């Protein structure tokens, strides 16, 4: 899991400046289709994925603002992180975010709702299902909805979004992954 420094129960997440993600997670959304409900010209959707924290997406419409991530096949997702900065964006900083998942636009269901309090940095949202033991959700589509902003701003800025999921088993069709070196050494040919 990503390192966080608060309790999840409150739902109020500060941001962390240095993102550290577990080794057995990998970024899943490179091949996904990203779309947004609206954007200001010059601050389009691709700024969400450009690995540049200076650039941001700015919405340009009515709330809620939506970011849609559609995958080519059902994927296991564990973690969603986004980078926001209250100091720079003030009233554009999102404060209430709802995460929804489903097969498509027609059957999205909310899986998580978080509130942010003047966050500066990376905010991680764990995507466990309702069962806390299940650390993953298996889905075709993820939707991030910004329901309200700080200081009642209308539009929102988000600087970067990343989605993480588990790595596939290096040995295909095996029930469990190997952990010890003696096993991994022999588990494949390179």
């Amino acid at each position, binding site marked *: 899991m990503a390192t966080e420094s608060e309790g999840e129960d409150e739902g109020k997440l500060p941001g962390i400046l240095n993102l550290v993600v*577990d*080794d*057995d*997670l*990998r970024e899943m959304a490179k091949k996904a289709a990203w779309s947004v409900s609206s954007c200001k010209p010059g601050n389009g959707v691709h700024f969400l994925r450009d690995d540049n924290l200076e650039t941001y997406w700015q919405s340009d419409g009515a709330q809620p603002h939506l970011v849609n991530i559609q995958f080519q096949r059902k994927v*296991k997702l*564990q973690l969603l992180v986004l980078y926001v900065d209250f100091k720079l964006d003030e009233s554009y900083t999102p404060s209430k975010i709802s995460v929804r998942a489903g097969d498509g636009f027609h059957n999205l269901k909310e899986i998580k709702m978080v509130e942010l309090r003047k966050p500066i940095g990376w905010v991680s949202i764990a995507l466990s299902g309702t069962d806390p*033991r*299940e*650390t*993953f959700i298996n889905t075709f589509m993820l939707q991030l909805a910004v329901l309200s902003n700080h200081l009642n701003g209308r539009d929102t800025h988000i600087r970067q979004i990343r989605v993480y999921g*588990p*790595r*596939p*088993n*290096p*040995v*295909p*069709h*095996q*029930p*469990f*992954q*190997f*952990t*010890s*070196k*003696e*096993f*991994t*050494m*022999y*588990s*494949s*040919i*390179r």
Partner: protein
Amino acid sequence: MAMEAVLVDCINTSLRLYMYRNATFLCERLCAEFPSEINLQLLASCYLRNNQAYCAYHILKGTKMAQSRYLFALSCFQMDLLREAEVALCPRNEPNPELPNGAAGHYLLGLIYRYTDRRKIAVDHFLKALEMDPFLWAAYEELCILGAAEKASDIFGESAVLRLQQKHLSWDMSSKYSESGADDHSTLLGTRSLSANDSSPRHLKQLHDNGHREIAAHSQGTTVGTGKGTQHSNSGPPNVSLYSTPSPVSTQFSAAPPPLYRNAHAQSNMSMVGGEGSPRSAANAVNQAPRKKIMDEGKLRKSSRSSSARAAYSQVSGRLFSDSGLRRSSRLASDTSSQASSNASHVGGNGPSHSSAKLFGSFPSTSKMNSGSGRSGTARKGHSWSTENFDEGRRIDASDDAGSDDMAVSRSAISVSGDDKTHLRDRTNSVIGVAPNSSRIASGALELLGLLRTLGEAYRLSCMYRGQEALEAYHKLSQSQYATGWVLCQVGKAFFEMVDYLEADRAFSWARRVSPYTLEGMDIYSTVLYHLEEEMRLSFLAQELISTDRLSPQAWCAIGNCFSLQKDHETALKNFQRAVHLNPRFPYAHTLCGHEYVALEDFDNGIKCFQSALRSDSRHYNAWYGLGTIYLRQEKFGFAEHHFRRAFQINSRSSVLMCYLGMALHSLKRHEEALEMIDNAILADKKNPLPMFQKANILFSLGRFDEALKDLEQLKEFAPRESSVYALMGKVYKRLNRPEKAIFHFGSALDLKPCATDAAAIKSAIEKLHVPEEIEDNL
């Protein structure tokens, strides 16, 4: 005319001293002033040495002479214009063309056919190349890679020795007729083995063909004109620089300096009969001094050969020739060959001949001669024949042989008696000098063949992936040969293919200590370190390799492996792609790219990469394996099985391959075969836990729980800290309805910190333990 000669001289010196810009500039002036195809060849060779194949390509386009076509084909090959290269070497309207440069031509043609996927013809050409030149190791290597090599003892064995002796014979034949020193290419490259009868007209013809060339291109560079093994090391710049074709015999003579030949040719130009002249005195180095002694061309050549043989063999502390001479003559006398008697008479008459000292040098080779006596006997026979003829024919002035100051390096113990006598002796001794030299050559060649035989057999076995046998073969080498970079890397590779990474690591690190500048084979070493998960050492290796040569694909492969070990597959992929760009014919770089694509789940590109690897080397089992894993993931089990089987057919010793083949068979529901294959895998390598685990998995899915448990218990003993073993045992116990055991094992599995997916699976399995089997969901 004179300017041309001087220019050629300068160019050759520059080439010899690696001053390529100078050589190129002068050569361009030469070609402008005296345009001729020979000069063009020289210019092309300047360009080729300076890595400007495209220049050579343009200037040689359309040329017809053999050597030009060879150089042109070489340039095309370097520019990856394989079609043109092929046409240049085998022009279509000639039904059965003779390939320029004999063995080297066949080798180049073989390479072209190999890279255009015409394996059979490639194999034919490599075999022909080896026939012509049994020391052409590179051709044997290619045969091994193509999987078509016969036993090394066939190639580097009896027949090779016989062929060599024929060549010795023809060397002497040719030497006698080499008035102008224009002996086509060394018979060692021998497109023709001259017989005494034929040599004369042929020689003259060669002279005619090449005389022009002789004049124009005096250097070692175009030794095509200077025949005999001596020049071989220098024959044709492309040979030397690119294919290391030179016979080892000639390397003995590598000391033969160009000035000598310059002299020789200069002499030949100025006076057909070797006369004493200023060129000789122009010869510079002391070690060339003794050679200057020899006057006429024939002697010049022979003596250069002999003196360089001496240079190779001799110990500076001279031995009195007289003893050796006597020994030699007696040995020769006892030779059983028919002509030996006549030979012996010659020899006998020469007894202690002093000036021959410089010709014969020391005699460590005498013992070798003895050992090779049977064969060298034949050689001597041939030589004695030539000796006879020589004697009849020539009476060339040996006047200056007595040039005593030039004998500085020779056995000074010998006193030179009266001129005439020495002259006579000199001549005959130089004649005799031929015979022992050739025998020495023969024995040297035999030794070399022996070495190549051992190495060849070992290499062939390692290409056949018979690792254990290959290792035994390598151990037959002497310690000094064994402890060299190449051999140690091959040993490491053999261990690698037998999946013994620790031993491979040892061999490779020894190799790095012995020759830290060697890059070949380091890609495999980086993979070994990757498997051993030695991050520090792997990154250290990568850094070292990059600082040695930024443009070598192996270095970039090592860096890529570094990143891959840290699970940064995108960067790893970028690095592997760089390796591919640097050398698109390097199959391993393609394979590694493929593995990274698979890790990134980009299967289409992965397939493409593995197929590119197979295009360069269809016996690259790693690529077959890679394709198999892709199809396994895509659940195309039939394809997976096919590809794993291909990999297995190439490398039948790898327990990992057997295991994967078993897994594919299991997915195809051919359970019996699967279990059989997995059992083989277990037998093949006791230390490999993967097949045991897979077997347990298969047994579990077949419902044979008790057997599965037995195997898992064994595995637990073997690797007590492996989470997946406990997890699987937990599953089995769960199915056997023994929840306490199941919980115990699941708990242990969780304690051993499995990855998140597995942890989640195990936790939910524990939760569902108390739910009856029927409504359990998929675990």
